[in-house]
């Protein structure tokens, strides 16, 4: 289904849409309060943008430098061209790990938040191959129980109310029916997850930043689940998109200040964990994934979408996202940034996403790395049209409109005829909802007898 259809479905529940909008607007305001007191915030954005631009322009070198240093640290580095290869590599690592080889019974994995593994559809692949996968972030665990994709990249279960979570936990964790107290529900999840952590053979994490000069990487979480998982299991697999690099450790000071403030309005995430080498007797692997990123890097108009640090601020500020929900985008990364990343992956499937915006520009204003998101939305629209993915009615309608607007006399006459028709035809016809979507919730403007041009010709022209 395309975005308008899914959005309409979401918006049909008026009160829930209000709640969703207000919940995310609350986060946006929290973010505002966190950035206003920092006089250099706009300079930080510029600096972050420049560091990322520089890194993307020299990505080949930085990737090799990162790999070299990571290997020196005793980490095994793997390269995956696409999601399928990524999944296969992860499975191979698990099956070949000395601590796991020969284990009877199911292999158990705990995962902490990784949008990349969502993108690669790792969970179903591993489960098919006999690995038990448990997402350990609270929000991720909730949507995993419900067999839903995350609806937001930072707050994956933001589309759910505490009553919904209560239902889900009642079904999967045996909490009392009707229990909706957040503390009680969280406690149930803690007890449940604690068991999973203790049993895990392997821990998988995402990567927020990978530092080329040291070969180390940083994972930012609020729940501490990444650390717990990694420290208990014998094998740590970290999966990263190839754009996660930054050249130096000192650059972290820029990004760490921006990330949590932009994401949730916190000065910093509760845990900012640095990983450099495996503990004695343990294994650490990094899987570096392309999966369309090189292709995007080759698109000069869209390259800098790869600067994204996945804070989700563009979603929280987007008036369309807030009223259509993350699932209406039907892509791993929803919202404005998803709408400029997804056409790179499948232009046909996601051709409605660049149009799921009013081009209000708020996304570009909040973006901590200054991605010109709304400009790229506009540019993707041109690509959609060029690649013949526009609906036929729109395509030919626009061609006709352009012809008319290039010929003043035709435009004048067309306007006059249209206005007359609007005046003469009965309201029920001009406002027929099946014919005129405008009229579902809005009245048309009154059609005046005289256009401005006609008035001018009569009254002013000498």
């Amino acid at each position, binding site marked *: 289904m395309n975005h308008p259809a899914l959005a309409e479905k979401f918006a049909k529940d008026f009160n829930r849409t209000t709640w969703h909008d207000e919940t995310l607007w609350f986060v946006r305001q929290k973010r505002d309060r966190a950035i206003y007191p920092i006089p250099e915030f706009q300079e930080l954005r510029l600096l972050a943008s420049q560091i990322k631009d520089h890194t993307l322009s020299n990505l080949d070198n930085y990737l090799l430098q990162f790999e070299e240093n990571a290997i020196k640290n005793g980490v095994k580095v793997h390269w995956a061209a696409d999601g399928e290869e990524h999944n296969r590599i992860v499975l191979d690592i698990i099956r070949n790990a000395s601590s796991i080889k020969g284990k009877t019974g199911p292999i158990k994995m705990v995962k902490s938040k990784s949008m990349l593994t969502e993108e690669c559809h790792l969970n179903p692949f591993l489960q098919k191959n006999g690995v038990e996968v448990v997402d350990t972030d609270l929000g991720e665990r909730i949507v995993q129980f419900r067999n839903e994709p995350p609806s937001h990249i930072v707050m994956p279960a933001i589309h759910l109310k505490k009553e919904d979570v209560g239902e889900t936990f009642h079904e999967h964790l045996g909490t009392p029916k009707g229990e909706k107290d957040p503390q009680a529900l969280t406690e149930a999840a803690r007890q449940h997850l604690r068991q999973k952590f203790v049993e895990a053979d392997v821990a998988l994490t995402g990567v927020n930043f990978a530092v080329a000069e040291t070969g180390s990487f940083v994972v930012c979480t609020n729940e501490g689940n990444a650390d717990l998982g990694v420290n208990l299991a014998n094998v740590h697999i970290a999966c990263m998109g190839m754009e996660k690099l930054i050249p130096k450790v000192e650059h972290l000071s820029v990004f760490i200040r921006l990330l949590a403030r932009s994401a949730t309005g916190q000065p910093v995430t509760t845990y900012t964990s640095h990983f450099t080498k495996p503990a004695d007797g343990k294994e650490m692997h990094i899987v570096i994934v392309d999966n369309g990123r090189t292709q995007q890097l080759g698109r000069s108009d869209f390259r800098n979408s790869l600067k994204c640090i996945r804070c989700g601020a563009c979603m929280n500020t987007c008036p369309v996202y807030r*009223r259509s929900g993350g699932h209406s985008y039907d892509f791993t990364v929803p919202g404005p940034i998803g709408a400029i990343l997804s056409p790179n992956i499948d232009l046909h499937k996601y051709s409605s996403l*660049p149009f799921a915006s009013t081009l209000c520009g*708020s996304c570009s204003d*909040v973006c901590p790395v200054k991605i010109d998101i709304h400009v790229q939305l506009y540019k993707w629209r041109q690509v959609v049209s060029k690649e013949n993915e526009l609906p036929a009615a729109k395509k030919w309608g626009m061609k006709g409109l352009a012809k008319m607007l290039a010929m003043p006399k035709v435009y004048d006459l067309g306007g006059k005829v249209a206005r007359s028709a609007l005046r003469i035809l009965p309201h029920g016809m001009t406002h027929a909802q099946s014919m005129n979507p405008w009229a579902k919730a809005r009245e048309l403007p009154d059609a005046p007898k005289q256009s401005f041009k006609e008035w001018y*010709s009569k009254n002013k022209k000498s």
Partner: protein
Amino acid sequence: MKVALFIPCYVDQFYPNVGINTLQLLEKLGVEVAYPTQQTCCGQPMANSGCEQDSKEVYHHFVDTFADYDYIVTPSGSCTYHVRKHYDIIDQTPAVQKVRKGVYELVDFLENILKVEEIPVDFPYKVGLHLSCHGQRGLRQANASEIIGDKGGQILTLLRKLRGIEITQLERNDECCGFGGSFCITEEAVSARMGQDRIADHVRNGTKVLTGGDMSCLMHLEGIVKRQQLPMKVMHIAEILNGSQP
């Protein structure tokens, strides 16, 4: 200084009074204004729908129409933004460059070219200001709440000069109204909902007259006001500044 008036297509067809007030206001301020009658549209409707290639002939027509003027003043931040920002796909001849540089949104022109200090108008109403995104974020005519807590901007500065006016304090000062060109049709559900939410904010906080710099946003919002039969009058900023009363 040679000044031309550009009245956007939908204003020409549906809101002639906005055009008349713009013209009268400029004349009152001593500006000699020409109105080239072969004008049509800036080409934005097609371009925002992905068809900027089709728009090229409209761009050329626009440039041909206005190339002789130092300033092209229009009561629309959105059209101004489109000409300045998106006329980059045609040859940048001296005429194209001159037109892109010379096109001005009305309030910007009043404040920064004419340096208007006084607006001798009584307007004893509670006025809600709707900031159009293209004026606010496109042309940077008003601060954006994503960047700074201060809510200042060009239209607000002029409104505050009116005698007896009270300005509505909104809960969301600069959220998009949801018009968005063809978005208002293709994404009807979200578009309507965005507009309803904007109007609800104005209703809750006492707006009696709703104004702004872009009639396109206001057309969409007025459509909701009328459908919901609310006691709220929608006026373009040019009408208010020219002394029209609700």
